[in-house]
């Protein structure tokens, strides 16, 4: 469904992506793991052109574009098929929870207002926020804000949702509510790429794990492959560092 090939991106002299390729099938839940600075966010942002890659090819169903030279029309098409959930939520501060969700429908996709409100409410109900339609982001907890962020993403019916560390800005006690919503989405067959440091989630919920380091994909496979039989030394080191008692658990 989505295939990106040989993506390169540098910020000045800092080469952040050095030829990354990944492939996602419909219904896949892909976890992207890796140490800080390995280029995970940059990769995700390159997919929907929040960052313009220096090189690379993107195939998305019948779309086939060069990441560097994609036209405005191509970018628009790809953004229509994707949605993004941000680490810092990035909810529209001047809009209520409901308006945050309807915005992409009414303005981005020209859905009639009444229908948009209907769909937005459904999305908010799904993430457990049926009591919070008219709250502004500033009146919501971090976990609630991120759930609005997820509702905003699912409401536009994207083919794939890109999550960039959706729980890392949250207090520990709020992480669970967001992960539960994501588990629910996974169960329903939503295609997602999730950059995360939540190892338990990556292990239990995803069907594919990609480990990145230094701007490259070091290793990829099923969660079982990666977590219990990692082939690469760098993967093992990483897992030892992020999972307490890793050596005992395998």
């Amino acid at each position, binding site marked *: 469904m989505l295939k990106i090939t040989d993506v390169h991106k540098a910020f000045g002299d800092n080469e952040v992506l050095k030829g990354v390729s990944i492939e996602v099938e419909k219904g896949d839940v892909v976890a992207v793991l890796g140490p800080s600075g390995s280029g995970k966010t940059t990769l995700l942002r390159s997919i929907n052109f929040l960052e313009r890659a220096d090189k690379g090819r993107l195939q998305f169903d019948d779309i086939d574009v060069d990441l560097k030279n994609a036209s405005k029309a191509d970018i628009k098409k790809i*953004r229509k098929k994707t949605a993004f959930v941000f680490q810092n939520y*990035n909810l529209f*501060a001047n809009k209520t929870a409901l308006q945050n969700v309807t915005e992409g429908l009414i303005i981005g996709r020209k859905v009639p207002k009444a229908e948009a409100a209907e769909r937005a409410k459904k999305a908010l109900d799904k993430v457990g926020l049926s009591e919070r339609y008219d709250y502004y*982001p500033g009146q919501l907890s971090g976990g609630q804000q991120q759930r609005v962020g997820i509702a905003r993403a699912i409401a536009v019916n994207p083919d794939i949702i890109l999550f960039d560390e959706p729980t890392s800005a949250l207090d520990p006690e709020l992480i669970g509510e967001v992960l539960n919503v994501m588990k629910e989405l996974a169960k329903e067959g939503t295609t997602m790429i999730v950059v995360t440091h939540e190892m338990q989630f990556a292990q239990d919920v995803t069907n594919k794990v990609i480990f990145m380091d230094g701007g490259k994909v070091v290793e990829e496979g099923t969660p079982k492959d990666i977590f219990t039989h990692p082939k690469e030394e760098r993967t093992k080191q990483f897992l030892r560092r992020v999972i307490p008692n890793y050596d005992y658990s395998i």
Partner: protein
Amino acid sequence: MFYIDIFFKHVWNILPYLKTTFLVAAITFLVSVLLGGLIASGMLGKNKPGQMLAKAYVNLMRCVPPIVLLFIVYYGAPYLVSSLFHKDINGLDAIYFAIISLSLLHGASFAEMMRGAYLAVGKGQEEAALSIGLTKWQAFYRIIFPQAFVVALPILGNSIIGLLKDGALAYSIGVVDITGRAQYLISMNLGGYVLETYLALALIYWILSSITQKAFGALERRLQKG
């Protein structure tokens, strides 16, 4: 000896000329918003020469005293226009020159205000808007501008007060606004009742500023949400 009756008489005498003060302030405001928007987009844009030009302009305006700029425009603009377009604009009403110089000046400070407000909103808001399918322009007027406006409000209130007060300089090239009228009253009295006249003028400026301040305070409270 302070003549309170003269003071009130002069307040009354000056008031009709508020019309001119308002006209200068209103047009200057509009032009400053347009010019400021243009310069701010230059400063924020990706185009390097555009950035440098915009920054240089703002710096230049910060360094010129308003009254000096006013005289430069008043004497310089006709010269410039006649050498460029061979047209004589010496006879043009002084009010035009006042508006041009005040706009050049306040356009620069409006640009700074707009730039600061835009940056305060943060890149993430635009990115979120793009990610759900808005265009850059839609992201700007639906998401960024409304937030930047709230951020800028307190400064905007002060800028408008500053703009009203700077308008007082226009009398020096012959614009008869409230300050010009006060000057006229003084010369009519052969230099008498100076204190009464200037205090009357100060009272009017004080009331104008207070009203502006109160209005912006109220607007701020209304728009403060979330």
